[in-house]
């Protein structure tokens, strides 16, 4: 299956490369790690649609990495016209560097987030440790795999979801989260690294993962090996998208970039997001099974924590609460 997928992709890209006239518009989308599969499909579908509307076939490149590292690359001169990152705070940094207006998040619907996701648990087949909710993670003998919140956007959501649960259940959130991290044997630098540690290396009893990442792991690594457990409380993660105004070369490129992001909100783009296990907004063109898999759960948004501008330094900044967890005696 993998083979045919990459083969088809290769053929498609080759076709694009051959078909593209010398001065076709190009677009660089700088994105974060778990969106690779999504944007591979989006780019192909959008290019087809754009060409069908009578434009020259565009060349759309994507770059993936940790959300923070990618934002830094754009600040340091990576010539991205579109950014699709994990955290609004990362795009805020690019705005601070003057590459896009400070009010970028109000330019597109839903806080500029065409799709959302949440944090769920991935456990081993049959859930041998009986893990149902956040409280079960700190039981004796349970090992939890999550990436480092310092280097991974997803891990920050993991941390905040645990914090939210403790608050709602009358526990001291800092003590609970501190306890949780004593159950973590490996802190990978990114979400994919953690998935590999859990799934391929057999470490740990439960993986805290993006919902889309958990479903993808089931699909790619084996449905018979893992189960997804949905906790009572989780977070509403809104990965935002934006046009990097400072890197737009001309009007034709702006038109292309605008159409590209609008496409993400179109029924077709939304259907692709659903297909890749994201919770999108418009399900009018979606196969019913792609929607039905998402259970309803109590979602806390970043605004409930006071927004990234407050959360980032307080929890994850130098000497913040996360640092204190490890250095407190």
């Amino acid at each position, binding site marked *: 299956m993998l083979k045919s997928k990459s083969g088809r992709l290769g053929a498609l890209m080759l076709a694009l490369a051959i078909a593209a006239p010398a001065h076709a518009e190009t677009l660089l989308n700088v994105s974060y790690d778990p969106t690779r599969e999504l944007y591979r499909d989006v780019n192909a579908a959008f290019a087809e649609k754009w060409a069908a509307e009578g434009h020259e076939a565009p060349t759309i490149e994507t770059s993936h990495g*940790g959300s923070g590292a990618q934002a*830094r690359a754009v600040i340091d001169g990576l010539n991205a016209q579109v950014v699709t990152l994990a955290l609004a705070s990362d795009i805020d940094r690019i705005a601070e560097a003057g590459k896009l207006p400070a009010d970028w998040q109000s330019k597109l619907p839903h806080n500029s987030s065409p799709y959302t996701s949440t944090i769920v648990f991935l456990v081993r087949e049959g859930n041998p440790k009986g893990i149902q909710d956040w409280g079960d993670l700190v039981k004796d003998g349970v090992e939890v795999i999550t990436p480092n919140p*310092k280097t991974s956007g997803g891990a920050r959501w993991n941390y905040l979801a645990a914090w939210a649960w403790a608050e709602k259940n009358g526990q001291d959130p800092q003590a609970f989260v501190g306890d949780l991290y004593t159950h973590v044997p*490996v*802190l990978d*630098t990114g979400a994919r690294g953690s998935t590999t540690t859990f799934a*391929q*290396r057999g470490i740990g009893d439960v993986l805290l993962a993006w919902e889309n990442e958990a479903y993808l792991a089931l699909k790619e690594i084996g449905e018979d090996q893992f189960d997804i457990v949905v906790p009572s409380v989780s977070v509403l993660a809104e990965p935002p998208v934006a046009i990097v105004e400072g890197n737009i070369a001309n009007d034709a490129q702006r038109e292309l970039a605008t159409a590209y992001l609008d496409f993400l909100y179109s029924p077709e783009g939304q259907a692709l997001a659903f297909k890749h296990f994201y919770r999108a907004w418009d399900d009018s063109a979606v196969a019913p099974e792609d929607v039905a898999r998402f259970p309803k759960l109590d979602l806390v948004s970043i605004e409930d924590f006071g927004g990234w501008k407050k959360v980032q330094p307080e929890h994850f900044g130098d000497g913040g609460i996360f640092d204190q967890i*490890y250095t407190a005696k």
Partner: protein
Amino acid sequence: MTMTARPLVHKTAMPGLSLSAGITLTMLSIVVLLPIGALLLKGASFGLTNVLEVVGRERVTASLYLSFKLSLLAALFNLVFGVLLAWVLVRYRFPGKRLLDAAVDLPFALPTAVAGIALTALYAPNGAFGSLAQAVGLKIAYTQVGIFIALVFVGLPFVTRTVQPVIEEIEQEVEEASATLGASRLHTLRHVILPMLMPAALTGFALSLARAVGEYGSVIFIAGNIPLRTEIAPLLIVIQLEEFNYDAAAAIGIAMLVISFAMLLAINLIQIVSRRKMGHV
């Protein structure tokens, strides 16, 4: 040769002084000194007290200590194993020797990230070696032992490759003379051969140590990356970069640079001194 009144450059009849010095210093400046200068400048604008404050943090000192401790252990292992390997490869004849000789360079050839993934696959509890270790109650991957193995891997070729040519140069007569004078074989090895190998072995040791301290790609997969326990210094730099904290990243980078540079300089000085001594004896 007295130290007093020694000119900056001693006049010799050799040609090409300005050309070779020109190329050396120009490339050194563009490739090494300018970028490192940019790093130091960043540190300077951050301020010495701030740099020291960052370096003095518990997590930073712990990771620096861990990086240098494990690198030192790995380099020591490579020193012993590397000399042994060089001796075996030069002096003995056995089937598969050529293959073994070529394999010594493999750690240079394998991309570090690939090496990291492969080593983790081997030493994880469900891997080939990891499951064996677990049977006797040892954990390798995601512990300091795992980091040690990755560091041994990346530094493996240095000592062997610097010592090999020296062993090839050793004149058989020296050993024969020692044997004729009644020294046992082990005595000859220890007191005649080993001192001859030491300068080259030290070079290899220094390179292996330096390489291990800075290694990131292969270690990151096999280390657990838990603060204060299995978190290496290069990872802390990456973490600071993720937070857009260039100043703190530069501070830790400078600390690593200063320590490594001091160690390398010390080893190079020891070598030059020992060469002078050897020359006079």
